[in-house]
Structure formats: C-alpha cells, structure tokens
C-alpha cells in the first residue's frame, strides 16, 4: 500500500528562485494494485516517483509500510527503475541482473534461480552471456527491468513490496510492451504495490487499476482508467483532439488521435 497526500515538490534553481515541480498531488495505491501516472513532458511524473523513492525533498506525506526499516531492509522491499541507465561498463547480462540480488542474503543457488527466472520473465535468457554495452536500447531496458524484478522477487516474511517504474516500456516493441505489463500484473497479484509512469495511454488504460493524470505540476484527474481517459481530459492534457472508444473484449478505453 502507498498513500500520498498533498505532495508538493519544489527545487531551487541556480539563481535561487524556487520552481514548483509538483503541487498538491494526492493518491492511494492499494496492495496489489497498479497505478499509472500519465501526462505531457515536464508535468512532474518522474518527480512524484523520485519523491516516493527518497531522491527528492518534498512536503506533504508519503506513507508506505515498505519504507519501514533501515536502508538495507528498504532496498529489499522497494525497487526502482529510473528512466535512463548510465551503465557504461561491459558487464554481461546475467551479471547486471544479479546486481538486483545485492540487498538479499539468500545464497548463490537461490540467487541464480531467481536471476534465471527473471531472465526468462523478460524474455532475455538468450542474451544471458552477452555484453550489456552491445545490446539495443529495448534489450537494455529489459535487462534493467529483470534486475529490478530480481530485487523484489520474493517476499521474505510477507514484507510489503513496492515497485516504482519510470517509463519502463519506452523502448520496447509492441509484443514486449504487453509482455512487460502482464509481468507487472503478475507481481501485483503477488501483493506488490506498483506505480508506473507511462506515455502510452492505451497500454496504461489496458493494464492499470488506477490512473493519475498530471499537467503542469498539478493533478488534473485521478481514478479508474475510464474516468481518466476521456476525450475532455486528453484534450486538456495534450492539446489534441482525440476519440475515445472502448475495447469490446476488455472494456477498457482506447484512445485514437484525431
């Protein structure tokens, strides 16, 4: 579970002016739910995520049981995928994924099992011994995702787990986008609380339990996908005339740019 209320984030620029990045944002993600944060560039989506993971100072309250304990305990319960990776050294793929097991002391055998399972989950088992530096952007993203999944793979002693993903599907092909979202849903079903920043509205509407729309640091909509993905709100968010249809199979809203 994650509860954020009246979150406000501001940073001082070089000249001393304060810029408001996020203003008065409140939402709640229940255990096992997936929340997707959407909005145009610079709306404050990543800032919300970085406040939750402790990288940015904020005012307001952010509450989750996963934050209990010291650094080490926290790193067993909270996993974060940043938007970009700066890994610049020739690790091979399984070595990168194995770094996700660093906070745990589960032993080499168990770690190897989990790494292998995560490699399969992200469909990169065939890349296992390849040099990370030589992979394509989408492959690198899948490797980083596998690393993050490894970090919260098990719940030791039913401890609460929180997964924060910043644009995890930005470099993925269509097949792997859905593959990833299904994996995320599986984690949610195991009791992981998940917040994911996304640009693909249709993908978010298809898989998220709740959506939060941000625009210019402010919260403009929050609720179930069908409450957020409306022609009016999308027009407001992106300045674009759109048509919203509903999937005949799943019933989720589908956006068509017009």
């Amino acid at each position: 579970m994650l509860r954020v209320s009246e979150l406000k984030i501001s940073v001082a620029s070089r000249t001393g002016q304060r810029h408001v990045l996020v203003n008065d944002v409140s939402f709640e993600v229940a255990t096992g739910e997936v929340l997707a944060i959407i909005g145009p560039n610079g709306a404050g989506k990543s800032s919300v995520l970085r406040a939750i993971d402790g990288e940015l100072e904020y005012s307001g309250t952010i509450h989750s049981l996963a934050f209990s304990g010291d650094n080490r305990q926290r790193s067993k319960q909270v996993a974060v995928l940043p938007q970009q990776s700066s890994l610049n050294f020739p690790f091979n793929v399984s070595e990168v994924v194995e770094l996700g097991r660093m906070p745990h002391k589960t032993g080499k055998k168990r770690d190897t099992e989990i790494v292998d399972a995560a490699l399969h989950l992200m469909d990169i088992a065939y890349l296992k011994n390849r040099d990370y530096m030589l992979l394509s952007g989408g492959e690198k993203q899948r490797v980083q995702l596998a690393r993050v999944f490894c970090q919260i793979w098990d719940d030791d002693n039913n401890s609460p787990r929180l997964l924060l993903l910043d644009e995890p599907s930005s470099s993925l092909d269509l097949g792997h986008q859905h593959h990833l979202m299904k994996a995320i849903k599986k984690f949610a079903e195991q009791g992981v609380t998940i917040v994911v920043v996304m640009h693909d509205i249709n993908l978010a509407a298809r898989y998220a339990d709740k959506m939060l729309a941000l625009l210019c640091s402010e919260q403009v909509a929050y609720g179930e996908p069908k409450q957020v993905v409306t022609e009016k709100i999308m027009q407001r968010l992106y300045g674009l005339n759109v048509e919203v249809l509903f999937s005949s199979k799943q019933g989720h809203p589908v956006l068509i740019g017009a």
Partner: protein
Amino acid sequence: MAIPEQNSTEPTIDKGHRERPIKLLTFGLLFLVPASLLLSLSVGTLTIPIESVLASIVWLDSSHAINTVVNDIRLPRSILAGLIGGILAICGAACQGLFRNPLADPSLIGVTAGASAGAAVAIYAASNVIFFSGIYGLSLVSLSAFTGGVIAVTGVYMLATDKTGTSVATMLLAGIAITAIAGALTSFIEYFADNENLRRISLWRMGGLEGANSIRVNLAIIVSFAVFALLPRYSSALNALLLGESEARHLGISVQAVKLKLIMIIALGVGVSVALAGSIAFVGLVVPHIIRLIVGPNHRYLLPLSALGGAALLLLADSIARTLFAPIELPVGLVTALLGAPFFISLLSTRKHFGMET
C-alpha cells in the same frame, strides 16, 4: 515467487565465459608476480643467476657480495616496486569504478599534482632554509609530498561536495583545477630553484624507486596492507555504483559514505606511493583496464587481480629501468609511461565515447 516461466529451462549455474578467464588469470598472475620478483632480483648492473638469488634469499651458501646485492640493495627496492605497483593499480581500479569512467586515473583527484607541489616545496626548502640532506632530506620530501597530496584531494572533495552530496562529475573538473594550481606552484618553485634543485625536482617527478630503504619499505607494507584489506570490502558497492548513484542507493548502498571512504583510501594509497616513489604514470590506468578486458568489470575479481597485475608490471618496468642502459638507471616512471602511452593511445582509437556519457 511463482511467476510461471514459459518453457522453464534448466537453471544452469552458468557463469559462462567468465569463470575460465578468471581462473587462468589468477593462476597466471600468482605465477607472474613471484617470477618478476625473482627476475628483478637477478638482473641489473650485475646479473646474478636465479639459483644464486634463491640461495641468498634463504641464506644458503652464496658469496657475501651476492648476499649484499640481493638482500640489502635489490630486495627492498623490489618489494617497494611490487607494493607500489599493486597500490597504484588497485586504487586505479577503484577510481574508475567510483567515477564510472573506464579511463579515469587516480591522479584525476589531484593527489599526484598536489604531492608533486609538496615535494617541490620540500626540496627547495630543504636546500635553502635548513640544510637537510641524506635520509632526513628524503623523508622530509616524502612527508611534504604526502601532505601536498592530501591537501589537494581535500580541496577537490570540498569543491565537489554540497549539501546534496558529492558530484563525481564536478570532482573531475575540480581535479583539473586543483592540478593546474598545484602545477603552477611547482613551476613557480622551479623557476626560483637553482640548477641542482631543479634537477632533483624534475627527477622526483619522473618517479623512481632508488630511494628504497627499510623505513620506506615498512611504510609501504603498512599502507598497502591497509589498502589491500580495505578496498575489496567495497567491491559490491562499486559494482552497484557502476549502475549509477541513485540505482546504488536503491540497492541499499549508503552512497555518500561509500564515496567519502573510497576517496580517503585512494588518497592514502596514491599519496603514500607518490611520496615514496614519485609519480609513476599509467600503472593505475592501464592495469585495471587490461584486467577488465579479461575478467569483466566485477570488482570482486577486478580489485585483487589489478593489485597483482600492478605489482608484476612495476617489478618488470623497474627491471627494465635498471638494465636498459646499465649502469645508468632510468626513472621507472619514464619506463611505465613509455610502455603505457602507446597502450593508452590504442584505447583512445578503439573507444569512441571515452566512457563520458554521464
């Protein structure tokens, strides 16, 4: 966790193509280090056969002259060479990890230039203010070099640190700035130094191991013991840091504390080795790089293997320095630069982005 794996394949304990090279390199270096130690004891102005070297090390029958050459003259120097080579290389490996830049060098944090300035000050002051010479003069130079190195690193660290933490990118730039200031100070002293001091300063800067004596060797043993014992404790932290600082934090690493401790250990190791042997170029850059090409960037293997590789390289370089124009000895820094620079150039030509993407 019960995520269904599609076509669950056998969970192979497959370290793949890494395990063999790690083993081979470990055995190779464990052989190479003693071999180059013996070689360095054997060659020089007087070539002593290996069996006589072995004989005199273990105090077996051997002429008194050979005993003196091997045990009193060459052994301290060889031990110093091996330890300093090891310190420089392991600190180089840690530095490259800390800066997330495979082309970083321990001298980047200003320690070498600061130590050079400190040494220049001492050489100048020793001849002008107080008439220090011989053993006292030498240790005054070392002490002053170490102080200079520590002041420079402290300056770099403070410039790069604010309340949000230390920025390694700023540290690189601050290192350049402090290096320039220290360089200017050294030049200033050189300008006013007489010919003999000028020569001493410039010889000191080329790096050399000829000042090896038991005090220096003991100091090197203590410091290298500390460095070799402490740095490998940070191998997982360094591995995590390669992902990025926030990623390392999310993996439970106390990033700021780790950075500070690593910088202190590197400054101690490099500061002491520069103080004892002058600035020896390229060992800290080239050795970890070669090791990484073979075993990959995992610091668990990279750090100890770099130490062994650095020891072997400096022992061999010092042997070359003593024999190439025997009886004249070249400064060992000159030899490592001559060996290292072509390698560095070849790295530049194969690496387009210089590892400076962040």
